[in-house]
C-alpha cells in the first residue's frame, strides 16, 4: 500500500528518494488527489501547494519521449540520453543501459535503479517485446 508522508519527515524528500535509489528501489512521490507521480521530489504538490504527498514504488513501465546520442569531440558515441514518460506520469532523464544506442522515440522501456560512475542513477532497459 502506498503511504502518505507526514508533514515533518525524518529525511528531506530528496534524501529519501536518493536513499531508496541507493538501496535499489525507485520510490516515487505522488499526489494522492490525482494519483500522478511527482518528480523531482519536493515538499509540496506542485501547482496546488498541498503538503500531503504520497510515496510508492514507481511503475517502471515507460516510453521514450525524446532521445539523443551524446558524443565526444571526434563524434564517437558516448551514451544515449533519453527522456522517458513513466506510466505513473513522471518524465525522467536517464541513460539507456548497457551502451545501447538504437532506441527510438516511442520505444517501450523499463526503469530500474542502477549506477552511473558509481553514483546511484535511474537506468532504462529497452522492454522485451512479446513474441
Amino acid at each position, binding site marked *: 500500500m502506498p503511504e502518505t508522508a507526514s508533514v515533518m519527515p525524518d529525511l528531506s524528500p530528496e534524501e529519501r528518494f536518493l536513499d531508496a535509489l541507493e538501496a535499489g528501489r525507485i520510490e516515487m512521490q505522488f499526489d494522492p488527489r490525482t494519483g500522478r507521480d511527482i518528480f523531482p521530489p519536493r515538499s509540496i504538490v506542485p501547482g496546488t501547494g498541498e503538503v500531503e504527498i504520497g510515496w510508492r514504488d514507481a511503475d517502471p513501465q515507460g516510453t521514450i519521449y525524446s532521445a*539523443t546520442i551524446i558524443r565526444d569531440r571526434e563524434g564517437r558515441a558516448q551514451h544515449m*540520453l533519453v527522456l522517458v514518460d513513466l506510466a505513473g506520469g513522471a518524465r525522467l532523464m536517464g541513460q539507456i543501459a548497457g551502451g545501447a544506442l538504437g532506441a527510438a522515440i516511442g520505444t517501450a522501456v523499463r526503469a530500474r535503479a542502477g549506477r552511473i560512475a558509481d553514483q546511484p542513477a535511474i537506468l532504462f532497459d529497452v522492454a522485451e517485446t512479446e513474441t
Partner: protein
Amino acid sequence: MTVRGKVAIVGVGLAGLAGEERHSAMGLSALAATRALADAQLSLVDVDGLFASSSSQNFPAMSAAEYLGIQPRFVEGAMVGGSSPQQHVLTAALALEAGLCDVALVLYGSNQRSAGRSLQSRAEPQFLEDINAPRNPIGSYALAAARHMHQYGTTRAQLDEVIVAAREWAILNPRARANRPITAGELAAATPIADPFTSFDCCLVTDGAGALVLTRAERAADHAHIPAYLLGAAGTVTHRQISQMPDLTRTGAAFTGPAAFAMAGLDTGDVDLVSLYDAFSINTILFLEDLGFCPKGEGGAFVSNGAIAPGGRLPVNTNGGGLSFLHPGMYGIFLIIEAVEQLRGTCGERQVKGAQVALAHGNGGVLGAQATTIFGTGATL
C-alpha cells in the same frame, strides 16, 4: 495601464567584439554602458535605474553598480537566463512610467571565450540530472530538436536552412565573428555532437557586452537617434530543467508572443524584422511557430528555400544571430540592439529597408524562460 509607447530605447552600446577581448565580464559591460550613454548623449551621472544580468556573477546588479560607481534609486537583477534583458526592458518601462527612475541602463557582458569557459553558464545542479552526462545545454536542446523532428517531420535540411540563413546575414555584418560562407559539403561532413546536432547547430562561444539606455517617451526625441519605442512586452517561465518542460515542441513563447502583440495592438504581419534567440538551430523554428509566424509544426517548411535569409520573405536574425554573430554566455541583449539599429536605419548592407516594427525574442535556460519585446519607430505610435 499599458506601457505601449511610454518608453523608448535612446542609446545602445557594444563591447568585447573581435580585437577587444582583454577585459573582464564587468569591464566589458562598463565599456558597453558608457558607449550606450554616449550614444544617447548622456553620461553615467544621469543613470538612476540599473538593470543587470550575468552568466558568471551571482550579484550582477551589485557588481555593476560598484564598478560603474553609481548608486541607482531603482535596481533590478532578475535572472532568467538569456531572456533577462527582455524582462529588464519590461521592468524598466514600469519603473520609468512610475517615476521610480528617469534614465534606465540595461547591461550584460561576458568574457566567456577569453576566460576559456564552455557553453555552460553558471547554474545550480538539477536533481539527478548531471549524473546522466547530458552535456548541457547542448543535450537538452538536442532532445527538443529530436522530438520536433519526430513529431512534425522537421528535417536535417530544414535545420541547415536556419544555419545558412544566419551565416548569410552575418556575412553582411562587419561585426560578426563567423562571416565565411558555409558550404553544403561542410554541413554534410560536420562532426555530430548530440544527435541531431553538429557544431553548426550550436551558437558561438565569444566575448561580448551590450547596453541599452531607456527614457520616457516624452524626452526620447531629445536624443541623437531615432527612438525605438517599446510597443509590447511579455515574459514567462515554464521550467528549469528539460525533463520538466511540459511539451518539448512548444515553448513559453506561445504565451509571450500573443501577449506582446496584444499590448502592441499588432500582429505578425506588421513586423518588418524578427530577432530570435538562436542558441541552437531548432530555436528559430520553435519561436517562429510559437510567436505565430506559422502554425505549430510548420516552422521547418517556413524557413525553407531561403525564406529567412537575405532577400527572403521574412528577415530573421539580421545580425547573424547567436549562430554566426556572437554569443557571449547569454545573447538576449544583442537581439534588442539589432532591433534598435534596424529601426534607426543604420545597419548598412544588412539594413531592412523601411523597417518600422521589430520583434526581439529572448530565451533562457534550456527553453525554460521566454520573453518577447516589440519595438517601433515614432510612426507606429
